[in-house]
C-alpha cells in the first residue's frame, strides 16, 4: 500500500478516536499514533545469528474533561481496543484533580504548514542483504588485526514507519520516516587482557550509511586500541570528551533547562535565564527542519510548530525548553519541546580532531562514559570513564577504571574548545569538547 494511503487511514482512525472522546464527555482531546515496520538481523563469527521481523503500532490518547486530564494507550488497534482505550482515558479524568495548567496546546501555536523534511527513504526489506552487510563488517574486523580474537556480532536494522498526531483544535497531520543502521562490536585479547568496543553508522537514507568494511575496521581499531589499558593516579588533569561521547554533556544541559525540571525547582540552572552559563564564544542552534535530520520534525508531540532557535547565544542561556504544561506552570508559552529537542548544532572553535589533541596537550581523552552519576538538581557530576592518556598532543596509552568528577556549572563555563569535526549520528551535533581540569579518581 502507498504510504500516503496508509497515513490517510491512520488519520481517519485518529479522527474517529477524537470524535469518540468528545462524545464520551471530553471537552478536548489529542491522540497520536505510530506504525513501524522493519527488520533487525545480526551475525556473529561471520554467520547469521538472528533474523527478526518487527511490526509495531500503537495509539495514545489524552482527554481533558474541563481541567481534568486522563491518558491511555494501546497496541490493540481493533475497534474494541480503541473504544476501550478512549473509555479508560475518560474514566481516569474522573479521578484526576482540577489543574488550571492542563489542556491542549494554545491554538495559535499549532503547526499549520507541513513541509516535507525528506525523512522517508523506503527500501525493500531484505534480510539477506542485511546479513551480508553484517557479515562483511565482521569479516573486515576479524581480518584487520590478529589481536581481534572474538566477536560480539554485527547487526543491521531497517525501520520504516509513520507518525500521526491530531487534536480537537483541528490539526490531524502525519508524516513517514525511515531509519537504517549498521553496527559491529568486536572483542580483542592480548596478554590476558580482554576488551571490546564497537562502531556504528545510522542514517535516514540507506545509501548514506558508511560501508560495512569501514564499520568493521573502525570497530577493530577501537577494540585493539583499548588493550593494555592502565589506571591513572588520583588527581586533577585536563579532560577532553571525544565527539563520540560529548553529546551526553549537552544532554545534561537539556535536562537542566527543561520546563519540567524548572517548575519542580529541580535544576541547577533554575533562575539563570539570560545569564552566562557557557564561555562567550559558545552558541547552540536548534534546527528542527534539517532535511533528513535524525531529530527533525515540523511539530512537537503536542502539535506545536517547531522553529529555528538560538538556544545559547554567546554563552548566554537564551531559552529554556517548554512544553505546554511546563510553560503554563511558569507563566510563559510553549516553544515546541514536548517530546524533546530537534537537532542541536553546537558551535565550535575551529580545530580539527588532531588540533584538538594539541589543545588538550597533556591530559585525559575520554572515549567512554559509564553509569548515571549526574545530579540535575545540584549539577554534581561523577561518572566512570575510559579513554587515552595524551602527552603533548600525542596519545600515549589506553586508560580505564577511572572516574571523572566535577560540577556541570563549572564544567560548562570551563569549556576551552570544541572541535570542528562534528558527530552527526544523533540529535546533538558536536565536535570533541575540551573541558579543562577535572578530578580523576584512579589508583
Amino acid at each position, binding site marked *: 500500500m502507498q504510504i500516503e494511503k496508509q497515513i490517510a487511514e491512520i488519520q481517519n482512525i485518529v479522527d474517529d478516536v477524537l470524535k469518540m472522546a468528545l462524545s464520551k464527555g471530553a471537552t478536548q482531546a489529542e491522540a497520536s499514533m505510530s506504525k513501524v515496520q522493519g527488520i533487525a538481523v545480526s551475525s556473529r563469527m561471520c*554467520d547469521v545469528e538472528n533474523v527478526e*521481523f518487527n511490526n509495531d503500532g500503537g495509539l495514545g490518547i489524552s482527554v481533558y474533561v474541563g481541567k481534568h486530564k486522563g491518558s491511555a494507550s494501546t497496541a490493540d488497534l481493533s475497534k474494541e481496543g480503541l473504544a476501550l482505550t478512549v473509555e479508560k482515558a475518560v474514566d481516569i479524568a474522573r479521578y484526576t484533580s482540577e489543574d488550571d495548567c492542563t489542556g491542549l496546546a494554545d491554538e495559535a501555536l499549532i503547526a499549520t504548514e507541513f513541509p516535507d523534511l525528506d525523512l522517508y527513504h523506503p527500501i525493500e526489506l531484505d534480510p539477506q542483504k542485511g546479513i551480508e552487510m553484517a557479515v562483511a563488517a565482521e569479516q573486515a574486523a576479524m581480518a584487520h588485526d590478529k589481536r581481534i580474537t572474538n566477536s560480539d556480532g554485527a547487526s543491521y536494522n531497517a525501520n520504516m514507519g509513520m507518525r500521526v498526531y491530531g487534536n480537537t483544535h483541528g490539526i490531524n497531520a502525519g508524516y513517514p520516516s525511515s531509519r537504517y543502521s549498521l553496527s559491529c562490536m568486536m*572483542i580483542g585479547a592480548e596478554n590476558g587482557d580482554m576488551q571490546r568496543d564497537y562502531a556504528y553508522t545510522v542514517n535516514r537514507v540507506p545509501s548514506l550509511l558508511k560501508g560495512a568494511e569501514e564499520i568493521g575496521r573502525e570497530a577493530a581499531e577501537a577494540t585493539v586500541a583499548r588493550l593494555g589499558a592502565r589506571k591513572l593516579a588520583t588527581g586533577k588533569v585536563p579532560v577532553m570528551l571525544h565527539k563520540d561521547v560529548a553529546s551526553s554533556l549537552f544532554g545534561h544541559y537539556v535536562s537542566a533547562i527543561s520546563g519540567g525540571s524548572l517548575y519542580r525547582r529541580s535544576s541547577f540552572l533554575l533562575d539563570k535565564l539570560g545569564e552566562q552559563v557557557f564561555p562567550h564564544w559558545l552558541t547552540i542552534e536548534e534546527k528542527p527542519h534539517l532535511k533528513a535530520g535524525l531529530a527533525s520534525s515540523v511539530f512537537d508531540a503536542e502539535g506545536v510548530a517547531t522553529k529555528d532557535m538560538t538556544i545559547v547565544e554567546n554563552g548566554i542561556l537564551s531559552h529554556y525548553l517548554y512544553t505546554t504544561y511546563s510553560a503554563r506552570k511558569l507563566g510563559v508559552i510553549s516553544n515546541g519541546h514536548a517530546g524533546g529537542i530537534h537537532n542541536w548544532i553546537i558551535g565550535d572553535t575551529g580545530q580539527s580532531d588532531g588540533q584538538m589533541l594539541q589543545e588538550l596537550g597533556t591530559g585525559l581523552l575520554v572515549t567512554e562514559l559509564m553509569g548515571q552519576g549526574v545530579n540535575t538538581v545540584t549539577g554534581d557530576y561523577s561518572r566512570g570513564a575510559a579513554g587515552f592518556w595524551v602527552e603533548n598532543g600525542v596519545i600515549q596509552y589506553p586508560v580505564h577504571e577511572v*572516574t571523572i*568528577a566535577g560540577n556541570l556549572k563549572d564544567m560548562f563555563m570551563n569549556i576551552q574548545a570544541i572541535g570542528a569535526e562534528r558527530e552527526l549520528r544523533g540529535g546533538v551535533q558536536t565536535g570533541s569538547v575540551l573541558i579543562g581540569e577535572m578530578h580523576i579518581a584512579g589508583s
Partner: protein
Amino acid sequence: MFNNVKSHLLTDSGLELSSLEKALGQIYHHDNDYADLYFQSSQHESWVLEDGIIKDGSYNIERGVGVRAISGEKTGFAYSDEITEDALLSACRAARSIAPAGGKHAVKSLSNSEYRVRYESNNPLLAMEDAEKISLLRAVDSYIRKKEPGINQVVVSLSGVYEEVLVAATDGTLASDIRPLVRLNCSVLMEQGDRRERGSAGAGGRHSYDFFTTDKDGRPYYETLADEALHMARINMEAVASPAGTMPVVLGSGWPGVLLHEAVGHGLEGDFNRKGASTFSGRIGERVAAKGVTVVDDGTLQDRRGSLSVDDEGTPTQHNVLIEDGILKGYMQDKMNARLMGVSPTGNGRRESFAHLPMPRMTNTYMLGGQHDPQEIIASIDKGIYAPNFAGGQVDITSGKFVFSSAEAYLIENGKITAPVKGATLIGNGPEVMQKISMIGNDVALDRGVGVCGKDGQSVPVGVGQPTLKVDELTVGGTA
C-alpha cells in the same frame, strides 16, 4: 489458573491447543531444532500526585504473540499484536525461514508443566478501587507535609501491572503464568537558602496495592518509605564533597546488592559465556571471589519483584548457586544457551514482552550472610566510605569494569561514621573487587523491590540483595 489464561489468550481469539500444535508443526516444516510461541496480554496503570493534586493517570493495554524458531545458533523471530490464527501462522512462516525447508523433527504433544506458584494471581488494578488508589497517594503526600512542613516539592507515583502469559514449545512445554507487579515511589525536594536537594524512596513487588497500606513494624508501610525519602534529602542537604581515590568501602545491606548485579551477575549470564565474551568465561570451578562469598540467583522467592513462577520459556524458576564460598559454580541459562553449552536450563529465560526475544537474565540476585556484626565492620576502618544507598549501575562484561553510583554515603573516620558525602560513582573490576571482600555482615536483606535491569534494549524487573560488606579497595569518584 491455566484455564483462565488459556481462555483469555487463546479461546477468546478463536484458538485451541490444537491450533498451537499446528502452528509449531508449520515451523518444523523447515529444519529447525526448536520453536516456541509466547502469548501475552498486559494492563498497566499509573497515577501521579504532584503539587498536592492528582495530576495524571494513565492506562495501557497490550496483547500479542511472539514466534521464535531456532536452528543451531541461529534464531528467527516474528510477532504480531493481533492474536488470530492468520497472524500466528504468518509469524510462523516468517520465523521458520531461518532454516531451509525440509524438517527432521516432530512436535511433541503439549502437556502442562508442573510448577509452584510464587505470587497471588489477583489483578492489582481491580483489587483496589480507583478512589482508594487516589487516597493512598494523598495519604503519602499529607504524611510528608505534616512531617516536614517546609518541604517544597512532593511527587508520589503508584503503578501496577497485570500480565497473563502462555508459552507453548516444540519440546512439549505448555505453561501459563499470571504476574501482578506494583510499585510506589515518592520523591521530595528540600530547599535551604540556595541549596536544593532531592530524596526519594520506593518499594514494590508481586502484590496488590494494599502492600503499601498494610502495617509493617507497627505503621503503614508507605510511612516508612516517605520517611526514607525525607531522610535522604536531609542527609544530602548536609553532604560535603566525596573524597576521590582508592579506599576501603563498606556497602550497606539490601539495595547496595546492585554491586553483585553489575560486578558478577551480568558476567554470569549464559549467552555471554557461550560466546566467550565474558570476563568469567571458561572459569567454572575457579576462585572468582573471596572465601565466604556465596552468590545466588533465586526466582522462587515469594512475591518478590524479580520472582517468576515459570520463566518466559515455561521453565520453572530455581534457587541457582552462582558462586559458592568464592568458587564459580554455574551460569544462568535459557533453553538455547543451555542446549548449546550442554547444561540444563536454570529458569532464567526472560523477555520484556512478546515483541522481544528471550535471553538469559537475572531474577533476584543476592549474597548470603556471613559472621560479622555490621558495627564491627565499620569499626575496622580508619578512613573510608560507608554507602548504604545507591542509584543504578552499569557493566562492561568483557573487561569486567563496572560502575555504580551512591545516592547516600558517609565518611568513615577512625572506625566511626561521620559526615555525609555527596553521591559519587564507584568503579572497579568485577572479579578483582569480589576477591577484595574481606568482611561479610550477618544482616542479609533484599531490596525493597524497585530494580529494573536493561540488556540489549530490553527492561525486566529484578531484585538484588546482600549483607553489609567490606571491600578493601574500591575507586571512589569524588572531588575532594
